């Protein structure tokens, strides 16, 4: 009977901590919040959950990745430039953490390129500075994983927004969007929290290119 008591006690204690510290549960909750986010506040709140997970799960890169992603996406919803830049500064810290925990991670480097593009989103006159930076990061991400659909798609977007005069434009971007479409279709549907976003956006740009 003592044994049973002990087992029950152990079970009770561990479910309690499981409930509080369930990685998958917390991640799913946060991902759902991010998916439903509309306003800057929503995106920041989602990133905060990821931030909490980041400081518990010090060996995992995914929480920091999503904390950054949520802030980058959120930066597009803001109005004040200064505030938007602050969100990106914070996102940068998460990307740094992510790359520290998982060096040569193609997804994290892709996010870096995505962040540079968001800097241009805040202020269009930064294109000259950040467009090459974004291209550099995405190129690195593609070097680390040639089959990364997000890196390919974002690189295509970079080209899309570059004036055709500098070798950009729809026509030059199209083949890369097509390649990304293929890579999106092929990407493994793993159950873990590896990034899988970007397909819809890629479709949208494919349509734009074909117009």
């Amino acid at each position, binding site marked *: 009977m003592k044994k049973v*008591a002990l087992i029950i006690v152990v079970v*009770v204690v561990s479910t309690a901590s499981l409930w509080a*510290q369930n990685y998958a549960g917390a991640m799913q909750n946060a991902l759902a919040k991010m998916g439903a986010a509309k306003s800057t506040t929503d995106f*920041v709140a989602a990133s*905060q959950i990821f931030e*909490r997970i980041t400081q518990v799960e010090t060996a995992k890169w995914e929480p920091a990745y999503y904390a950054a992603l949520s802030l980058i996406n959120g930066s597009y919803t803001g109005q004040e430039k200064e505030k938007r830049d602050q969100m990106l500064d914070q996102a940068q810290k998460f990307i740094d953490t992510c790359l520290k925990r998982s060096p040569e991670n193609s997804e994290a480097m892709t996010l870096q390129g995505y962040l540079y593009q968001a800097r241009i989103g805040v202020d269009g*006159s930064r294109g000259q500075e950040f467009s090459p930076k974004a291209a550099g990061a995405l190129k690195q991400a593609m070097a680390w994983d040639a089959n990364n659909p997000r890196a390919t798609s974002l690189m295509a977007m970079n080209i899309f927004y570059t004036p055709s005069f500098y070798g950009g434009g729809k026509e030059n971007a199209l083949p890369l969007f097509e390649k990304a479409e293929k890579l999106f279709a092929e990407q493994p549907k793993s159950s873990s929290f590896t990034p899988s976003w970007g397909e819809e956006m890629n479709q949208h740009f494919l349509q734009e290119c074909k117009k």
Partner: protein
Amino acid sequence: MKKIQLIFLLTFLSVTVFGQISIHGKVVDTQNQPLPGANIYFENTYEGATSDSDGIFQLTSQLEGAQRLKVTFLGYVPYTVAIPAKADTALVITLQPEHNKVDEVVITAGTFGTDDDEQTVTLNAIDILTTPTSEGDIYGALRTLPGTQQVAEDGRLFVRGGEAYETKTFIDGMEMQQPYSSSTPDLPSRGRFSPELFKGTLFGTGGYSAEYGQALSSALILHTIDLPKESFTSIGLLNVGVQGGYTKRFDKASVSASGEYYNLGLNNRINPPRNAFAEDPVQMNGLVHAQVKSGKQGMWKALYSFNHHKLIAPYATSATDRENVALNSTNHYVNTTYRNMLSDTWMIYGGVSGDYYDDRIKMEEGNYHIMDRYSQGRAGLKYLPSEKVKINMGVDANWQDNERSNEAVANREAGFTQRTLATYVEVEFQLGENWAVRLGVRPEYFDLLQKIEVAPRLSLARKTGEHSQLSLAYGAFYQNAPDEYLAFNHQLNAEGAGHFILNYQYSRNKRDFRIETYYKDYQSLVKFNMGQSEYTPAYYTSSGSGYSKGVDLFFRDRKSIPLLDYWIAYSYLDTKRYYRDFPTKVTPGFVAKNTLSVVGKYWIAGWNTQFGFSFTAASGRPYDDPNTPAFMDKKAPVYSNLSLNASHLAYLFGNYTIFYCSVGNVLGRDKPYTYRYSETPNSAGTNERIPVQAETLRSIILGVFIQIK
């Protein structure tokens, strides 16, 4: 009984396990304004909450035991507080604003940082190339910054009352002994390296770091580019020559080779100089450099440059007579450096360099030959325990062998071998939010003198507002006496200077303003003992002295008018020296009291063209008329120069192409820079006045640059 025991145990456990922590509170800033959207959570747990629009939050948890509550918010310093177990707490949490990098206090007195990691005023390679007076020369662009003098006939940098040799150029931390191409008198020299080789420029106009020595006035610290993005071929065609290069990028390494050939022959037919060259200047430059990345932060770099320059130029010896001066100059420079992080907090860096040059000058009075060999080794450690503390230390050794001769004068060979060994330690730290302090010391051993000079350095910076700061710097600086004097007297003391600098800076929204005032005190300058022959050691003494003080103003605006970038630099300089052959303490001939530079660049997007202008004016420099008893009492005319350029960017056959045109002295202002006098009196017994002026009235550079990927 056992059942009871179990129930009891479970109840007891549930009390401890589910012993609640309940916290409610408010997050505010230092002005007591609510901060909505702050992240409030228990450290090392997933549990947390977000503050609402009034900054209010409510957090209940089943966590066991005491906890640490952490509050984070964008742009604010994270806050942590201990929460006892089973607490029911009400809290008002005040967050301190975080100073992002732009607002941070940095040591700025005496420096013009242009590195990525420096937040002060920036001039990058593009800025340099598009500054019209630069004509593609780093030093030409730096002459539009405050604290510099316009000595157009010389071409080198004269900083804050210092002679040109008092400014040293460092490439990746290694001193470059001969950064300028050799030239004949009255013909300006240029920097040996293209600005494109460098990613950043740190121009220390005084009070610079203890990491660098052997420069009395100023340190120009150039950092070469890291790995280029991709492989490319570049071709340049100019009215003065051709250039070409190839860069190959590998995964973690890159190699570049480039060559330049300049021949002023064609240009001298189109835009003839005032006095024809007997042999048009020809210059050949070669450059090979390589970078290898090792690990995450390690970088190894190597650079070799070759430079050959040949010309026969007319040199005025009286108002009417000219003699030909032939120059044949060769320079080899090699430099290799390495840096890497040993851990998260320790960085190692070091390098070796070698510099060889051989100058042969043929004049009527004789053939001069100067040969100099120089090598340097350096190794250091940086310790970066936190963002607020930085410790840098190292050793720096160099060896120089200098030989010179005048073939016309028998036994007039001279030279020296000099070794110096320096160590340096520098500590930089932040005191609170508003103060930054840098303390350094550099003891240096001079082998010829068998003497140690200890150079202390001190800098302080204080934030005075959200966008402004005040800095103060003091430093002692030593430099070997110039080669041409040390060659004859090996016992000359190192020349010394003390710098005091006060700087105020205001930076906001791509507008930068700074004002800097300084005082420099010179000792042990080389003074000539006029009673002796100049070939004897006794002719040279270390008894010269001088001072220099002034105010530098700088304003740059990249904001007010879209696509217009302009800066205004003004320098006031008051300096006097008792040195060399000066009979009294006077202002030297390279000094203008007032100097003004205005540079502007405007990009017209529709035309893909950038237009640039630079205007420089300087008050007349003093010169001496040997026919009068007073010394250096005459003033040359006011100097002014307006230069324009245009760069048109095209995308031809899939390659970037730049069409470039620059015209110097557009207005054709025809005033001499200054005057010299003939060394020997004419038949009437007077020394004739000779104007020192530009070789052509207007300079014109045309070029096409193509980058092929």
